[in-house]
């Protein structure tokens, strides 16, 4: 197997699952300048792929290029077997939902209003929700344990709560793929763990595929089926977490001196003073 190709073999029966997301020799960057090249992903239903790497390495750039927020410079992205640039915005919204890091500012919208926008692709001309849509909204909110927040103003809850509302929104959209850009930002450890549990449950029960970027290495190790390491101009390592969270790979990825950080225990060694 190509070292930078992810997916396909590690999970039992994975080969029979449909491939939801595939990239072939994807090159991403800004304004025509390539930043990262040779991104090859093969993500099946029911798998979690996590991108890790130093700040500014381009994890978000890859995510943005996959959904088409950024024009990719070369290579191809396939969503459920179809080239992403041949999908209409509506078709894509049925396949993939997102949770972004940008803080948004809303006015007089309740948390339920926000989650309800996840039903956008399914509602009619005026966007009026049916009872079935409302059930899905409640289901999604229950799954993330935010049902009690439904009548609260979205601007008057904590950052962590907002993050969970946005996850509920992404779930209510009922896509095949959920893409999360640093979903654990603003969350304390309790909610970080809870969020990852929700993702796991989602993946197992609904056969959703998840692609995300994470900073917290111990969390990434626990939750991911596959990990892709981004550094410099490309993918430096990829594969199941057991192969990635070794001192060699992690030290190389983050430019750490040997022995400073143990990727398995999360133990760190500070300089002697």
């Amino acid at each position: 197997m190509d070292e930078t190709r992810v997916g396909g073999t590690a999970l039992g029966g994975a080969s029979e699952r449909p491939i939801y997301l595939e990239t072939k020799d994807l090159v991403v960057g800004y304004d025509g300048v390539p930043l990262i090249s040779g991104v090859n992903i093969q993500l099946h239903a029911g798998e979690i792929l996590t991108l890790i790497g130093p700040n500014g390495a381009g994890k978000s750039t890859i995510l943005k290029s996959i959904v088409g927020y950024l024009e990719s410079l070369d290579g191809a992205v396939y969503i459920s077997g179809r080239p992403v640039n041949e999908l209409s915005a509506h078709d894509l919204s049925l396949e993939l939902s997102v949770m972004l890091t940008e803080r948004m500012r809303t006015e007089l919208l309740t948390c339920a209003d926000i989650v309800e926008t996840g039903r956008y692709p399914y509602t009619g001309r005026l966007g009026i929700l049916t009872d079935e849509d409302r059930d899905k909204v409640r289901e999604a909110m229950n799954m993330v344990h935010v049902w009690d927040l439904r009548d609260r103003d979205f601007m008057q809850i904590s950052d962590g709560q907002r993050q969970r509302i946005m996850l509920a929104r992404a779930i209510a959209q009922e896509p095949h793929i959920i893409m999360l850009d640093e979903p654990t930002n603003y969350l304390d450890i309790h909610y970080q763990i809870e969020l990852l549990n929700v993702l796991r449950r989602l993946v197992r029960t609904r056969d959703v595929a998840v692609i995300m970027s994470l900073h917290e290495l111990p969390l990434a190790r626990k939750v991911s089926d596959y990990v892709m390491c981004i550094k410099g101009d490309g993918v430096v390592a990829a594969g199941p977490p057991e192969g990635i969270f070794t001192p060699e790979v992690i030290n190389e990825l983050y430019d750490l001196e040997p022995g400073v950080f143990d990727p398995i225990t999360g133990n760190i060694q500070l300089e002697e003073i």
Partner: protein
Amino acid sequence: MQKQSDIDVGFGRSVRRRRVTIVFAALAVLLVVLATLNLCIGSLNVPIPDLLAILSGQDTTSTNYQVIWSIRLPRLIAAALLGGALALAGFLLQTFFNNPIAGPFILGISSGAKLVVALMMIVVVGSSGVMTNGMMIISAFVGSLIAMVFVLLVSRRINSMSMLIVAGVMIGYICSAATDFLITFASDANIVNLKNWSLGSFSGINWGDIGIMTVVVILSSLAVFFLSKPISAFQLGEQYAKSMGVNIRVFRVALILLSSLLAATVTAFAGPISFVGIAVPHVIKRALGTSKPLVVIPGAFFGGAIFCLFCDLIARSVFAPTEVSISAVTAIFGAPIVISILLKREKARR
């Protein structure tokens, strides 16, 4: 457990639904009351029984009949339609720029329309032609689009809400100054009339104007209403809207064209009118307790109609027989609302 939450959902939604119903009922009552006042009050006061006789067609000969039918009724309809159009234009611009104090007047779009209309008037009337209503709307539309393009160029380069507004105000000043030059050096009697129009007024509107105005305003307002769904997605930001299936490019163009057309129509018939576009959507959102476009759009239209009827009543009756410009009145009531928005935002930031 399941039962309890069923009740909860029903409860929360029915409370909100009741609030929306109450607000719309109140708007309907206000609209009727203000329409009646606008018809009755003036240099010639018409008692309500007489008004009913005139409207029901029993009285078709009195002076009152003449005043109501040929002056007050068209003026009333114009104020209501154009007020609604202004409020919607404001709401669209606030959505587009994600800026609560964006509006057609403050961003210089109304003034852009004014400048091109003045220019056209001088060229056309100067060559002894007559400016038709259609030409007025088209030149106002061109003018507002030109100003809009400038605002868009500025908004690409700066990311600050307040700087965008400052840039808009400057564009407005430039256009107004240029219009003043044109007016000063124009001598023709027709062009002197420009001066009244350029200050903003609903006076002098006749039934001929009402026809085309109704068509343009109603059609574009319906188009805005049918954009409720993508607008609600856009309220979460462009990237989320895209991920929900909104064709952002088409949507942006639609917003620009519709807000410019609505603002242009107002300017073509009544000159530039300030603050309605900012104050009305804001008050309506507070009253409804939500910014959901599906209810805010019709609410803002009726709110704009009511606000302009109210302001027009004041403009023509407080210092009667002298008329105050409509913009002066809308500013007196609208500007404090804008200040309160700014104060509230500052408080929320802390």
